[in-house]
């Protein structure tokens, strides 16, 4: 069986006043109908990798790759027009910053309704029910009240869950989730991830989970890629993350506070410990 997504030697570069700099430097991986996690520190190119797959990098940014196949079709050769029906319907992305991605002058409910209507024709009366169902699915209590709120009125975590609801409506084949749960407490987080998991098990969706929460990724994903300054420095099975060998990964692991914390100072990354930047 061919994998859902095949990426080979993906590069993303931006022009700066010091010339072109690459922010993703040759990333390769394949994704089946499974859960793949990408971790790494801020600025390591995680989001850019995700956006490049959806071809969402705007000029002057530039994307090149040797191979970028999604379910048997070549993403590289597709025109912007031909990408549009794929995006949203078959591959969708939960953006990192919900407050930035939601329309500030439209109620949350109206935005979810919009997402429903973009993919199926639903009679107006049934629409409100669909919106309520979606909000309930992401564990929002009192969905009718929340549907009438504007994005600045919902709490940080609720905004994030609204975003997730909107992206799951079309039941995509590939979901790229960029820090989908960073504002959620652990119990809601687990419930939302279970919801995504249902889609993986029932619909055979593939998930690319971008996160800086190593514990979450280790618990939830099947495989993990560790990125540092645009490159994949380590790739391992999720269960083996805590036994990772690369000094960068070890540094990240050591920086996580623990629930039975006794250290007075948390170790920070010592950037001279590995050959990278």
């Amino acid at each position, binding site marked *: 069986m061919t994998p859902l997504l095949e990426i080979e030697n993906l590069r993303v570069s931006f022009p700066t*006043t010091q010339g072109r700099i690459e922010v993703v430097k040759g990333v390769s991986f394949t994704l089946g109908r499974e859960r793949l996690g990408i971790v790494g520190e801020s600025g390591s190119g995680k989001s850019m990798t995700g956006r490049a797959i959806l071809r969402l990098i*705007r000029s002057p940014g530039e994307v090149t790759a040797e191979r970028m196949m999604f379910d048997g079709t070549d993403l590289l050769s597709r025109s912007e027009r031909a990408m549009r029906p794929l995006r949203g319907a078959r591959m969708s992305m939960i953006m990192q910053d919900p407050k930035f991605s939601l329309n*500030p*002058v439209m109620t949350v409910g109206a935005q979810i309704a919009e997402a429903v209507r973009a993919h199926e024709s639903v009679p107006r009366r049934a629409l409100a029910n669909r919106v309520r169902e979606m909000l309930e699915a992401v564990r929002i209590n009192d969905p009718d009240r929340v549907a009438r709120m504007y994005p*600045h009125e919902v709490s940080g975590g609720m905004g994030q869950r609204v975003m997730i609801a909107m992206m799951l409506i079309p039941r995509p084949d590939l979901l790229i989730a960029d820090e989908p749960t960073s504002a959620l407490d652990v119990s809601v987080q687990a419930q939302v991830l279970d919801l995504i998991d249902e889609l993986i098990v029932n619909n055979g969706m593939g998930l690319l989970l971008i996160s800086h929460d190593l514990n979450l990724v280790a618990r939830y994903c099947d495989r993990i890629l560790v990125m540092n300054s645009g490159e994949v420095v380590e790739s391992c099975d999720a269960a083996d993350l805590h036994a990772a060998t690369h000094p960068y990964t070890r540094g990240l692991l050591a920086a996580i506070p623990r629930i039975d914390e006794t250290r007075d100072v948390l170790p920070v990354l010592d950037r001279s410990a590995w050959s990278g930047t």
Partner: protein
Amino acid sequence: MSARDWLLDESPNSRMQANAGRFYRMGLALLRNPLAVLGALIILLLIATAVFAPWIAPESPVGQMLDRRLLPPSSANWMGTDELGRDIFSRVVYGARITLMIVALVAIIAAPLGLIIGAVAGYFGGWVDKLLMGFTDIFLSMPKLILALAFVAALGPGIENAIIAIAITAWPAYARIARAETITFRSSEFISAVKLVGASDARIIGLHVVPLCMSSMIVRVTLDMAGIILTAAGLGFLGLGAQPPLPEWGAMISRGRVFILDQWWVATMPGFAIILVSLGFCFLGDGLRDVLDPKQAGKS
């Protein structure tokens, strides 16, 4: 260290350098867009023509020579002469001054007015918003040219009154834009943070809200310039704007239309000028939108 390095320094040493660097980067981005450069050149040409009109124009714009009426374009009169024997090229050149004045005055009156009304309405919301926007909508609901006509009719014809009338019809659109923009960030955390510091509402609006509306405002004003020039020309055409013998382009077309079939150049030459300048503003406005677009400039 060269001036370029100084401007592009990632770690500037003063606020001035940081701002200069920001504008320099925008300028560089603008230069990458050929149409925007073309627009900017046309507008520079307009400004230069207006400033140096006495040196560029071969003749006085009002000197009549009735023995050479309605001559076609020739090497002596590049754009021909009109029904009073005046050199049309000279009149078009001097007309640049009037056009520039109209454009500048409308921008100076209408843009800040609209900006402040919109920012105040958007920032406070509630009944302040309802009141101000109700008022704005009354103006917005009337067609621009007709509203301007009504004002000119009430104030009496003349270039000053035409400018005031156009400004009065132009601000509501700016108020709408400023309000829409303000609403998107009025509840954002950087505004809350200055509130917490104890800054007054006037300070927040003036120093924190208005600068963020600025870029969309500049783009919109630039794009509107073409419309303003056309409205001014329309008023001139109807005899309600600049009065003879002022060489206003619209008024010139209006007088030339009598001869349009036999002496086409009388009406066409100022028409070309209007089209050229309007296009210039449109191109520049489009280029500025790409550079100033807050969605692009705000993200890293």
